[in-house]
């Protein structure tokens, strides 16, 4: 998939686990895992907003596009 998700790196930098992020943003662990592994087909703006707020980052830190 050309869209790369850098959630792993951001979690490591913030010393946060996926479970902690899940409880903060109100997304299930399963869904976050789907997102982290790049298997998600789409992401809602509300989810993106919640993750960026929890990780104090920009969407561009989370997602990049590679041809």
């Amino acid at each position, binding site marked *: 998939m050309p869209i790369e998700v850098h959630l792993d790196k951001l979690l490591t930098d913030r010393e946060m686990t996926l479970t902690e992020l899940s409880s903060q943003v109100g997304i299930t662990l399963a869904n*976050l895992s789907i997102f982290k592994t790049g298997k*998600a087909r789409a992401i809602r703006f509300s989810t993106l907003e919640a993750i960026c707020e929890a990780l104090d980052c920009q969407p561009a830190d989370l997602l990049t596009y590679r041809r």
Partner: protein
Amino acid sequence: MLTNLEIGEESRYFDAAPTVTAPILLDREDTDSRIVGVLGVLSLLALAWVALLQLRRIVRSARDGDPFDPRNVARFRWLAATVLVARLVLEAGERILTRTLDVDIPVEASLAQTGWLPVFGAALGLLALSEIFRAGSELRAFEQETV
């Protein structure tokens, strides 16, 4: 009133041979027709069983809260095929019985209560439903993979 009309003498009294619609009881010695009848009934029962099985699975998936299960797409297509095959079985039965019936006068067996048009309509309706469920199951899959 015309009585005791001899077979073959219809043309003396009618411009065209009159047709009479009547049920025929199969003679015990007419084994060919009886075999055809039994095979036809067994075929239709088998098709009815297949159709009921598919319907039951569709209803169960809806009752379980997940009607847009991708397997329902194939189930609706099977139902459409079953409807068409059942009509084909009746058509084949009519043609075979017309040949095997052991009667002295020309007969044409008629088993189907409807023509082909309603059957095609029903099959198309079921295929349309399968397409609706296919779109629904794709939307469901997309929703499941949306975070």
